[in-house]
């Protein structure tokens, strides 16, 4: 927890060198109890910035290859990140999300599964939608805008850019423990989630002034 808080402090102190950070809707993050934070993904900066401004400690799913080196395998879990293998079904990652939620924590997942190449919203990963339907906890949709301009996927350099983060009002589906019931809902839930996330992204872009 010490490293998590230290990282938050470093980002809060250091980010003004890169740009302004606008945040709206922090009151939408539940003060207690489990929740899923479902965000769009534009840049490597997203988890760092969202974890910094989120009023609750956030356990975040990250691609397993980020844990490949021993230093990262030491650091990432201390920043509350856990690995998910994206190229094959990963039941361990699903179990861990459910366990963290049962423990009353917040868990962050990037619903597109990877950073956007062009900054636009991509299709959601159906596995994440299934997980949302299975968990049955409040879902805080969160949009981040401007991180793509600071550090897009196709470049190695960080540039100055204002960033805006908007936390949406929680939405919730009842926990669907039956697989057939979940599958019947996946398309409709995915469409609903992405429509809401798109509206939030527009709001974040307006907040950023772009």
């Amino acid at each position: 927890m010490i490293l998590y808080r230290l990282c938050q402090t470093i980002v809060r102190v250091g980010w003004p060198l890169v740009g302004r950070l606008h945040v709206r809707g922090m009151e939408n993050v539940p003060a207690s109890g489990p929740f899923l934070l479902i965000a769009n993904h534009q840049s490597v900066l997203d988890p760092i910035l969202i974890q910094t401004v989120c009023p609750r400690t956030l356990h975040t799913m990250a691609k397993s290859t980020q844990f490949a080196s021993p230093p990262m395998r030491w650091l990432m879990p201390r920043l509350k990140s856990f690995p998910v293998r994206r190229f094959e079904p990963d039941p361990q990652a699903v179990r861990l999300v459910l366990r963290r939620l049962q423990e009353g924590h917040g868990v962050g997942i990037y619903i597109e599964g990877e950073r956007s190449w062009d900054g636009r919203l991509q299709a959601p990963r159906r596995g994440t939608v299934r997980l949302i339907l299975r968990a049955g906890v409040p879902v805080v949709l969160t949009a981040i805008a401007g991180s793509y301009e600071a550090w897009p996927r196709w470049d190695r350099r960080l540039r100055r850019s204002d960033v805006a983060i908007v936390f949406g009002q929680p939405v919730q589906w009842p926990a669907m423990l039956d697989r057939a019931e979940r599958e019947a809902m996946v398309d409709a839930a995915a469409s609903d989630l992405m429509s809401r996330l798109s509206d939030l992204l527009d709001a974040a872009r307006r907040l950023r002034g772009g």
Partner: protein
Amino acid sequence: MAIRDLLWACPFCRAEDVIRPDGGGEACKQCGARFRRTHGAEIEAVPAGGQPVRRHAADWAAELPPVRLPAEGQGGPDDREYRRSAAVARLVVGYEPVRAGGEYVGRAERFGPPVQGMLILTGRSLTFAPTEGQPQQWPLDAVAAVQPSSSALQIRMRGGPVVLFRFPEASVRLWDETIQEALRRLYRSTGRGEILEFQPRISVR
């Protein structure tokens, strides 16, 4: 990571896989247009003999043509070559446990040494021909998942290895799109339906 990963075709001459590193920026080796990142996610392009054009990356990307594959033979996908690029391959040779305060939270890949060679995609197979040693060929049918990761492409073979390919010069996004398109064609031609997603495993509707 480079502009050519995003712009896998030149916005001016429309040719695929022609933007390459050039001095401090990147340039189209076919028409000579030059590209560089300016402010934010803006890309400045200078066509040969023309004036600079600055646009947001998303606007440039929106103009990309769809990935084109060679025309399909009468009998469906065959051994015609779709794409070939220099590549560096790394095989997943094992896994390391990841723990948080003693609690097991998952596992991470352990990669073997990088191997330089050539990656070749045809209508029916994917072949990696190392600079030294025997080529490895996988039927396209054996591809179980395709996942771009940063500047690399992870491909999982059914019952076989997970291989990570990096492309020193070519566009990873173009390779991702081309393999996906080749798989869609193969699945359609063999009556397996439309592919719904490529990760965490290929699934069809």
